């Protein structure tokens, strides 16, 4: 006769390891006075284009760098190298998202004290990255006008996990009859109070507001080192 199974309490977070590394990274970023900003979106929403523009605009006044996640290629890093900022590619292989340990490994050899802004471009995916804290100070979620206004309702978890929403490819808005009010109301439904920027990395329209926001955020969160 077999005994009844016994129930033992565990209470352990499955992603504890990732969260520990993420917390350590956040602390390192804070101590070094660097503001870490991650970008998430579906593939093709314009993460790399926005990043290239942000790096180019910030670089005359700040020390900026970027880590870019990709399944297989180094194309994004090559593109971003045009901004003259230090860029490192994280090739994830078959993994569809970045994890805190990948960021930690990629930062090896980099002196964070020499940076003001660090951008982390996640793999194009609106599902998996939502579960992984990367230690970033701000998470930007991008939504391009060609994707449709209901993206936030289709992927509420990732939009809820982000701090700022960016509506990209604004230069195409009229051509695709993008309903800005509907998109913004959907964003507010899944993340009330979320900051939203509407811009085109291609024409530069709306970029200044986004850059000003980053500068202000750094000033407020890193008062000791802000310039």
């Amino acid at each position: 006769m077999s005994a009844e199974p016994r129930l033992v309490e565990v209470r352990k977070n499955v992603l504890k390891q990732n969260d520990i590394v993420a917390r350590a990274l956040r602390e390192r970023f804070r101590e070094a006075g660097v503001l870490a900003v991650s970008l998430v979106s579906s593939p093709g929403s314009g993460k790399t284009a926005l990043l290239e523009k942000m790096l180019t605009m910030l670089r005359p006044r700040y020390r900026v760098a970027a880590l870019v996640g990709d399944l297989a290629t180094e194309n994004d890093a090559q593109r971003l190298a045009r901004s003259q900022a230090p860029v490192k590619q994280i090739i994830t292989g078959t993994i569809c998202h970045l994890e805190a340990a990948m960021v930690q490994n990629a930062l090896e050899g980099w002196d964070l004290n020499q940076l003001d802004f660090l951008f982390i471009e996640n793999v194009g995916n609106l599902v998996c990255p939502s579960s992984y804290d990367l230690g970033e100070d701000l998470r930007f979620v991008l939504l391009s006008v060609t994707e449709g206004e209901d993206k936030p309702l289709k992927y509420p978890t990732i939009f809820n996990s982000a701090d700022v929403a960016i509506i990209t490819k604004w230069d195409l808005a009229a051509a695709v009859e993008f309903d800005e009010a509907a998109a913004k109301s959907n964003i507010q439904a899944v993340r009330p109070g979320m900051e939203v920027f509407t811009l085109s990395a291609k024409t530069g329209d709306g970029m200044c507001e986004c850059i000003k926001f980053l500068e202000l955020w750094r000033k407020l969160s890193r008062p000791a080192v802000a310039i």
Partner: protein
Amino acid sequence: MHELSIAMSIVEMAQEEAEIHGHAQVQAVHLRLGLLSGVAKEALLSCYEMACAATPLEGSKLLIEEIPVEVFCPQCEVPRAIRSIQWFCCPECGTSTPTVVRGKELEVVALELKE
């Protein structure tokens, strides 16, 4: 699809716990899964089976308790379960609120062990 790596972490975690408890055989793992955890229940269940294959946990069950999303309503000043994760507002008074108090859980809460 990140459920496989999460399932593998669960199996690893359960194995470590079972070792602490005298290498007992794990019959079931009780998991709390928030609706805002970013992990899909069905995918996790099928990945769990794969992750258990050829491990001491082969044949064990993953019992998932789904945790609804609760937000803190600043108007009513109490936590409230929201009706849909597409609409973060108090179901009673309709006030919008981004403050999530429950629903992001992804934790192993207990194991059923057999000596």
